[in-house]
């Protein structure tokens, strides 16, 4: 118990802060911060598996998040029949072409010795294949994108419950990680960082511009929800009764009947959105707890010990007969898959998919700040990092505003410098993140909750 005291203390403070937001700002804000903290925690767990367990740098988190989001769209949206009949055949043909291309390349790679001839012929196959696909798919894509472009203009999905996409998102991200890992894992650490960063940009470029698949920058809105809708809740009797019971003390003070009804209505509207957010929190918390149990089990298993051995001394682990390349690939896939889950969760919560919003600052570097600040190699640390950093990211603007007003209290409102500072309050979050990262790296390089290895 005493050993874990700092963990418990850190989490209690974090919870206390969120509750304070609930009391002083509103429960709605507190819960939406809490939900995004949970999603961030899932992302950091993924990054932590790669960086903390195995020492692999993955700066491509944005790409896996977006693939998870794409999964949410492809699973939950109803199929667009017209689009399928307009261009589905061409798309399927192109898919076949891609599969044939991959098989041919595999065959060449297996069959022939490594030579210049082989490299050139593979390059020729890829280039001609890409051109062939481009020209064969072109009419189909145009036909699909012409189907009611204001509303659909894409193939749609499978029309399944969106929860399934969390698993599918993991598979999508894992699949991409398999390809990236095969290509890039041999690189030295900082090259790997750059390569993964650039690959994630390619993924985003594709998602943004292949409108037939993702609707691109036109966004997909109104995704199905795993939780009830606020509008429905506001008209259900049991919910209104619940709110009434919950606030009976407050309502009884109001004597006027119509006033009381109005107050109740207001409370129901507020309560409904809090209730919906609570549903999400429950779902997300379940995911976080399941992942935490699994990752903790893995960390203390023989496999986890092997991973640490590989991280700390690759050559020695290799000499002991551990297959470093294979294990690196495995952990790269696992970590990315977890990030994929988080991506699907994020889109589920927002109810919309906006490819334009995927930016490396928010989805790659911020997650890394979380991992470093929280404590790499320690799952509790990673989750805490997700909470702390996300909380600061959201609350940075109010804090900065407070500080500016505090220090410039004597200066009149019309002062140009003060007005300028107040106007640029949103950017203080970057400053806070940067300074936080620099300070932690300098004075507590292992993070708030450092890695602890207990051999049981």
């Amino acid at each position, binding site marked *: 118990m005493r050993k874990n005291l700092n963990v418990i203390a850190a989490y209690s403070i974090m919870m206390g802060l969120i509750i304070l937001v609930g009391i002083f700002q509103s429960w709605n804000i507190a819960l939406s911060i809490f939900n995004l903290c949970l999603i961030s925690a899932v992302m950091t767990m993924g990054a932590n598996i790669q960086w903390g367990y195995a020492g692999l*740098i993955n700066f491509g988190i944005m790409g896996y998040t977006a693939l998870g989001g794409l999964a949410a769209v492809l699973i939950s949206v109803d199929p667009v029949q017209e689009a399928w009949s307009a261009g589905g055949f061409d798309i399927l043909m192109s898919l076949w072409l891609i599969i044939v291309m991959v098989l041919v390349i595999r065959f060449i790679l297996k069959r022939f010795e490594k030579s210049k001839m082989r*490299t050139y012929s593979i390059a020729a196959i890829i280039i001609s294949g890409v*051109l062939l696909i481009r020209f064969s798919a*072109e009419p189909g894509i145009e036909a699909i994108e012409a189907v009611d472009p204001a509303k659909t203009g894409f193939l749609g999905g499978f029309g399944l419950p969106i929860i399934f996409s969390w698993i599918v998102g993991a598979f999508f991200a894992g699949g991409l990680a398999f390809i990236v890992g095969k*290509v*890039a894992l041999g*690189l*030295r*650490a*900082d*090259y790997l*960082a*750059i*390569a993964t*960063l*650039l*690959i994630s*940009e*390619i993924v985003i*470029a*594709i998602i*943004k*511009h292949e409108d037939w698949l993702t609707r691109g920058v036109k966004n997909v809105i109104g995704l199905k929800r795993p939780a009830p809708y606020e509008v429905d809740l506001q008209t259900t009797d049991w919910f209104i009764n619940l709110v009434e019971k919950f606030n009976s003390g407050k309502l009884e003070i109001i004597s006027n009947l119509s006033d009381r009804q109005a107050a109740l209505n207001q409370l129901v509207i507020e309560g409904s959105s809090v209730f919906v957010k609570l549903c999400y929190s429950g779902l997300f918390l379940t995911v976080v707890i399941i992942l935490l149990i699994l990752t903790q089990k893995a960390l203390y298993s023989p496999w986890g010990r092997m991973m640490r051995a590989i991280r700390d001394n690759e050559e020695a682990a290799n000499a002991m007969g551990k297959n470093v390349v294979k294990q690196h690939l495995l952990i790269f896939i696992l970590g990315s898959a977890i990030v994929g889950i988080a991506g699907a969760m994020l889109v589920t919560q927002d109810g919309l998919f906006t490819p334009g919003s995927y930016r490396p*600052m928010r989805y790659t*570097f911020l997650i*890394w*700040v979380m991992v*470093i600040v929280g404590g790499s190699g320690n799952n509790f640390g990673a989750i805490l990092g997700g909470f702390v950093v996300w909380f600061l990211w959201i609350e940075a603007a109010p804090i900065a505003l407070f500080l500016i007003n505090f220090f410039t209290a004597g200066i009149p409102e019309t002062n140009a410098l003060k007005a300028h*500072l107040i*106007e*640029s309050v949103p*950017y*203080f*979050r*970057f*400053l*806070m*993140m*940067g*300074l936080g*990262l*620099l300070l932690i*790296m*300098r004075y507590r*390089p292992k993070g708030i909750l450092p890695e602890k290895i207990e051999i049981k």
Partner: protein
Amino acid sequence: MDILNAIILLLNYIFIPALTYGSQLALGAIFVTLIYGILRFANFATGDMMSFGTMVTILFTWYFQSLGISLGILPTALLAIPFAIIFMILYMLSIDKFVFKYYRTNKSPPVQLAMVSIGVMFVTQAVVRIIIGPSDRRFFDGEKFIIKAREFKEMTGLNEGLALKSTQVLTIFVTIVLVSLLFWFLNKTKTGKSMKAYSDNEDLALLSGIDPKKIVMITWIIAGILATIGGALYGLDKSFKPFTYFNNMLPIFAAAIVGGIGNPFGAFLGGYVIAFSEIFLTYAYKKFFMYILPESMEPESLVQLLSTDYKFAVSFSILVIVLLYRPSGIFKGKVL
């Protein structure tokens, strides 16, 4: 005549823009490569350092404009750049003193330094946005065109016009001067040679009496000059927006790695490789073929290999291919 038209078309839409963009990338790539070769880490703050330098240039430009100073047909920014460079060098040296020095003296692994540079990136980005804001700014003044498309048409009687912007000529000219000076410095002067020696083998260089503090300082000074000029030229030619500068970090990295990281000349050429391939692969050649092919063979589609949306993706794909087949870059740089 048609052949001439076709050549002018390519010059106007491919060659000149690519040369300009390539020069801008090249300056950034040399910056990345110098930091990597001598300080031994991948600097993720590259784009934001460039935007910081540009911001200072803009502030000085505004100041001069308010004083009524101008350079006539040349942009006032040219006058502001030297002052901005001094500012930038101070900024770079103080960052080094307060942030990077600690890790260098502790001999931290390069990965840790790269992480620290992410912290610097966040801070610099915040400072830029707090001071000048995130919006798009143009700070170009003076004569915009050297040759206008319409004038060129009237002059030569061709169908295709050739427009030559003064910023394009300025970019290419300044880059050539700056890069030649830099290579002269690295190859001919004693300090430059000791920098190369330090980059090749740190221990050996230290043994032969090279002062590491001086080397590091000069590296940051050169980096400051390159970042400010590179950033200001990009801003003059296109426009200044902090987010674009952050994004430009990616093709700059690609250029540095394609050219062989740690090798300044490779980085210089790498910039052009990236710029030309981006523009070559995403240009729609329909008009070009309309000029050179007989009428019966004219293409109906745009004859575009990739849509312009994939501009960035092109350079990154090149990078991935280079990393796979020649990890040390096209021109041999540091081996992985």
